[in-house]
């Protein structure tokens, strides 16, 4: 009997700074929920470090286990770190050795710029963004489709590599850019976000890695 594979899902959901202004993580939290359900349906065990569990102590404890080799982060990012629920730098330049031999899939702003680049020597591979990831609230579901596309493709397709996943994500972005361009001000604006997000996607380390 084959061993059950495990994915570590780290996802924040930050409170609103103003009652009328939703935080972007309200949306990414739900996109990550889709991942969790699909992984579990496919027979994976998901260690869900959600909201109050998306903090440094929990993340460090879980990542120390070498079995947990797939790490998914959905939340806010800086060039040098992924940001946890209490605004701590949960994975940063000082504890990035925790990512040793991990396959890392990140939906956050900036993180490949510094953290990903420096972690490249220890990770198995690292897929993330080197610029801000932004969107228009009215079209949030479509960004969710783009950012989830790569990992779901790997989950559902034998032999699908991180490089294949990267290309799938770009194709998904291109599809929705074409769909929304020139379709009114807000839709066109959303297309500009997708275009920038697409161009910010970076794959570091072993492009041939699979889940």
């Amino acid at each position, binding site marked *: 009997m084959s061993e059950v594979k495990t994915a570590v899902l780290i996802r924040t959901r930050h409170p609103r*700074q*103003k009652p*009328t*202004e*939703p*935080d*972007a*993580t309200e*949306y*990414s939290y739900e996109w990550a929920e889709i991942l969790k359900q699909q992984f579990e349906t496919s027979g994976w065990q998901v260690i869900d470090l959600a909201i109050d569990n998306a903090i440094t102590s929990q993340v460090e404890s879980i990542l120390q286990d070498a079995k947990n080799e797939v790490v998914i982060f959905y*939340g*806010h*990012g*800086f060039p040098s770190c992924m*940001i946890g629920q209490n*605004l701590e730098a949960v994975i940063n330049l000082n504890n990035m050795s925790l990512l040793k031999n991990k396959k890392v899939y990140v*939906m*956050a*702003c*900036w993180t490949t710029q510094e953290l990903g680049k420096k972690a490249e020597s220890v990770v198995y591979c690292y897929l993330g963004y080197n610029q*801000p*990831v*932004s*969107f*228009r*609230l*009215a079209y949030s579901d479509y960004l969710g489709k783009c950012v989830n596309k790569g990992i779901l493709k790997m989950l559902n397709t034998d032999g699908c590599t991180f490089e294949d996943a990267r290309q799938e994500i770009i194709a998904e972005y*291109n599809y929705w*850019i*074409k769909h929304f*361009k*020139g379709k009114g*001000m*807000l839709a*066109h*604006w959303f*297309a*500009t*976000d997708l*275009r*920038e997000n697409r161009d910010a996607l970076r794959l570091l380390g072993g492009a041939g890695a699979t889940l």
Partner: protein
Amino acid sequence: MIQSKILLVDDEQGVVAQFKEALTSEGYTVETAYSGEEGWEKYQHNYYDVVIVDWKMDKMSGMQLLENIDKMHQSTKVIMITAFADENPDIAVEAHHHHAFDYLPKPIDRNTLLQTVAEAMQRKDGVIAALENWVIAHPEEAVRPQKATFSLMGESQVWSAKDILEEIKNNTEFGREEYRKLFQLTIDLLTRGEVE
């Protein structure tokens, strides 16, 4: 209705007063600067539909100011004026090289000034004009939170369309980035019809 805004840069106070009176009488909002440095300082932090700049000023010349504006926002409509047109016929060529909208030798009569400014206004920045029109036509939607990002950098992570228009007009880093994105995708659509 969004009032069109003009920056008037000339070290001759009499010219500034005379032009300002003529332009405000037509309903334009006019801000003034009495040196190239002052004009550049104001330009960097505000949006102007049209900039009128005198060629000869101490320290930062009108041409230098035009060059700076050209590097920052090539689509800004700059009208270069000078009392030295006869002595320096190359000024007009150089001004056009830096994308000046027009070049007027002094003395400039009221009608010529107003007509040239009106023509420049008709060709105002297309991205900003489109945004302004959209904000006016969709007053409720324009103030709703609209854009979000997965970064905690900066004071805000959520913006309305009206906020973004203000950021663009105030020439902030965020505003310039939004403008660049819109402009780039629009250019892609116009030139290739595609975005790859």
